[in-house]
């Protein structure tokens, strides 16, 4: 542990919050970023983890406490992921100020993105486990002491023995009340001090009343509160509640935490070659561009870079959505956040921190995980009046039963307090949506906007853009015509040898065509070459690097001095000193999964459209191959937007799939939008969902996932509302003993989180829902 902490000098020690250390501007980039780079006194956005938060109502309190600090511009807290995003002005406030303000409200903040957060989380989870073990063990023993009293007939047991059993129960209930229940009491007390009603207040009241009634019965059996003991009920429902909370937090770490796990993929430290050539372990934030790193198998690459020694393969699932490891031989680029799964390699750092694609992905996901979808805000607003109503109902029930039996009256009130579960209500939406966002991210689709999951579930029309979406960026070699005596294969070989020197899409298509057929490089080697921009390539090739050279031109018909072919498609020609050698007809390369994707979307009941800026004939040709019936070519971006608005005016909910670059306004107007994030800087992709890989078939998968998510959210909300509607009246009527109420409440929140967890495990490419 010392080794890990020593990598982060200057951070506050775990036991003593020295928040003033955070006022050093050098620490700020560690957990946030400047919104106005260059301006030292500008606004900063910081990510922090909130401790001691149990439910959604706490999120409100933390937000309010932060917003009270002058200089804090905005604060958003997500209850499910326990992370907060704070925007503050460096000119008027220091971080320590709002850290302290939040601590005064009873919640500690920990800068996210440093290792203390995880060390602290480990400590918290140990404490929670220990609380649960104490409650469970004491519960079992208290049951033993309660059992004789239940089965003994009058006169079976001496009053001394009965009294001894009561005392023993009381002694073993003490640790449960004082230690295991302390989180409930502490958070209830915190709420009371702030004159608020929190979700733990009813539960804490219930525990306190039960303990007081039973203690009075232990030491004064003739007193006004009767002689009935409820230590067994008390320890049991505390145990149930803690079990529920513990499982819930484990599940939350697995589902909402799936996002966390993706974000925290970069290693803390890495082996760097020092000036003397030896490798030493340093913190990742000390790295600089140009450093040589040694990355071991199983480690994540900490920065974008190039392999300089060794060959390996990398798992880039998060970055590109490609689930199989890809070969990364010496000289290949590797991406931060991908895992080295092959062999030990040395890597030269080319980009670090916020410049890496990984950092862009993380920034997108962090922002999305902090949003509160509409349904979640509704539930949060309903939670407070609901709690107030519960307190009133409990008091009313107690007053009603008091005449008959004061002891029973208090227990009825306790049952009402314990059985209510607003937690389930406010967890219903965020738990499901975050679980879903995590599953989508693992499948290569980043959710930029949680609210969009709701819109996507309602979509009935999918509109595709053509280039870069339905088709690949590079065309494909379709047909070859060659001179008498020249075999088409030889013509392709000659053309590929020339084209290998160029990055033009047509050149890439020719090289690709050669590589698809042959494993070796072309036998011809260019000895001299010139590229004429916009026209073609001219060069001399020699076979095997020796012998007489052959002068060739590759490019447009005019450049090669030949007659163009009478076809609609793009074409490239090859000529030598004797004139025409060959012509290559290129076709737009439809993605392999385009037709299957369109079929899957239609099977889901969507109308599929193709809107393209290309000529009508080319658009129709692609549409026909992909199986799309509704197609419109020659569209300017304005035409596309008008067409989209037409569809929306007809009452259709439209999802737009584009490359995220030229069709930004169209994407922004659609109900839900997908961008293929390959070519685009992610932060600029103007879409709700960003597809990281090249596979189209994630789109029907994502739509099916969104529908499942909404279904789960609806189930959760109905379950939470129905549970409370049934159980609260039962408790008021006195039919629900406190232990059953505790079981009910724990089961209710657990059911909501379990239901949401179903979304996390589904594979994305399952096709139609």
């Amino acid at each position, binding site marked *: 542990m010392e080794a890990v902490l020593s990598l982060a000098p200057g951070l506050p020690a775990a036991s003593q919050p020295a928040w003033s250390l955070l006022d050093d501007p050098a620490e700020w980039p560690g957990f946030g970023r400047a919104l106005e780079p260059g301006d030292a006194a500008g606004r900063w956005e910081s990510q922090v983890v909130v401790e001691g938060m149990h439910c959604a109502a706490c999120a409100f309190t933390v937000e309010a406490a932060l917003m009270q600090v002058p200089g804090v511009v905005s604060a958003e807290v997500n209850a499910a992921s326990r992370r907060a995003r704070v925007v503050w002005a460096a000119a008027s406030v220091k971080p320590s100020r709002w850290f302290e303000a939040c601590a005064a409200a009873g919640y500690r903040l920990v800068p996210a993105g440093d290792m203390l957060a995880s060390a602290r989380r480990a400590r918290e989870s140990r404490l929670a*486990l220990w609380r649960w073990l104490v409650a469970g063990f004491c519960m079992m023993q208290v049951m*033993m*002491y309660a059992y004789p009293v239940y089965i003994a007939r009058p006169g079976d047991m001496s009053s001394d023995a009965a009294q*001894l059993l009561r005392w*023993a129960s009381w*002694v073993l209930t003490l640790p449960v009340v004082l230690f295991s229940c302390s989180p409930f009491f502490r958070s209830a007390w915190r709420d009371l001090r702030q004159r608020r009603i929190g979700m733990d207040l009813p539960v804490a009241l219930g525990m306190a009343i039960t303990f007081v009634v039973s203690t009075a019965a232990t030491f004064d059996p003739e007193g006004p509160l009767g002689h009935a003991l409820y230590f067994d009920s008390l320890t049991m429902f505390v145990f149930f509640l803690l079990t529920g909370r513990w499982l819930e937090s484990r599940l939350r770490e697995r589902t909402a935490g799936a996002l966390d796990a993706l974000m925290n993929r970069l290693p803390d430290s890495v082996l760097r070659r020092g000036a003397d050539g030896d490798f030493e372990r340093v913190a990742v934030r000390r790295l600089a561009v140009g450093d040589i790193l040694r990355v071991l*198998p199983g480690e994540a690459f900490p920065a974008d870079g190039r392999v300089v020694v060794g060959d390996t393969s990398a798992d880039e699932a998060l970055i590109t959505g490609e689930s199989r490891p890809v070969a990364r031989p010496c000289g290949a680029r590797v991406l931060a956040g991908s895992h080295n799964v092959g062999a030990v390699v040395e890597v030269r750092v080319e980009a670090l921190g916020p410049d890496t694609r990984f950092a862009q992905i993380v920034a997108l996901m962090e922002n999305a995980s902090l949003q509160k979808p509409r349904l979640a805000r509704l539930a949060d607003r309903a939670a407070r009046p609901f709690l107030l109503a519960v307190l009133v109902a409990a008091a009313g029930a107690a007053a009603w039963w008091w005449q008959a039996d004061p002891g029973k009256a208090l227990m009825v009130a306790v049952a009402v307090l314990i059985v209510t579960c607003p937690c389930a209500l406010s967890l219903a939406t965020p738990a499901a949506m975050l679980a879903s966002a995590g599953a989508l991210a693992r499948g290569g689709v980043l959710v930029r906007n949680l609210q969009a999951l709701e819109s996507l579930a309602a979509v009935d029309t999918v509109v595709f853009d053509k280039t870069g979406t339905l088709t690949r960026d590079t065309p494909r070699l379709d047909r070859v015509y060659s001179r008498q005596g020249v075999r088409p294969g030889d013509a392709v070989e000659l053309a590929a040898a020339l084209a290998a020197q160029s990055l033009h899409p047509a050149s890439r298509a020719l090289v690709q065509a050669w590589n698809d057929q042959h494993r070796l490089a072309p036998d011809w080697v260019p000895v001299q070459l010139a590229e004429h921009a916009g026209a073609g390539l001219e060069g001399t090739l020699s076979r095997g690097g020796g012998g007489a050279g052959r002068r060739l031109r590759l490019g447009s018909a005019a450049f090669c001095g030949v007659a163009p072919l009478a076809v609609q498609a793009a074409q490239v020609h090859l000529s030598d000193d004797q004139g025409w050698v060959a012509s290559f007809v290129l076709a737009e390369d439809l993605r392999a999964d385009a037709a299957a994707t369109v079929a899957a979307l239609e099977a889901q009941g969507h109308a599929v459209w193709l809107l393209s800026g290309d000529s009508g004939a080319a658009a129709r040709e692609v549409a026909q191959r992909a199986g799309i019936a509704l197609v419109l070519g020659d569209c300017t971006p304005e035409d596309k937007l008008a067409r989209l608005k037409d569809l929306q005016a007809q009452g259709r909910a439209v999802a737009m799939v584009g490359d995220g670059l030229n069709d930004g306004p169209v994407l922004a107007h659609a109900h839900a939008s997908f961008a293929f994030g390959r070519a685009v800087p992610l932060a600029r992709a103007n879409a709700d969902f960003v597809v990281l890989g090249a596979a189209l078939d994630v789109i029907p998968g994502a739509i099916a996932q969104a529908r499942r998510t909404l279904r789960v959210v609806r189930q959760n909300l109905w379950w939470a509302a129905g549970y409370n509607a049934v159980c609260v009246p039962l408790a008021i009527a006195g039919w629900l003993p406190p232990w059953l109420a505790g079981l009910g409440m724990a089961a209710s929140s657990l059911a909501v989180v379990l239901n949401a967890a179903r979304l996390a495990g589904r594979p994305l490419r399952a096709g139609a829902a």
Partner: protein
Amino acid sequence: MDILFLLIPFSVVLVLFILAGLWWAVDRGQFDDVEGEGERILRND
């Protein structure tokens, strides 16, 4: 039956001892990663 007056307090003390033992185990981090320790033998690093 008199033995009960010894056994019941003794059981209370025993419970407290067992709880202390559990505390020792939790505090040493024995439950932090229940699956990982078993899998460790399969990893080759």
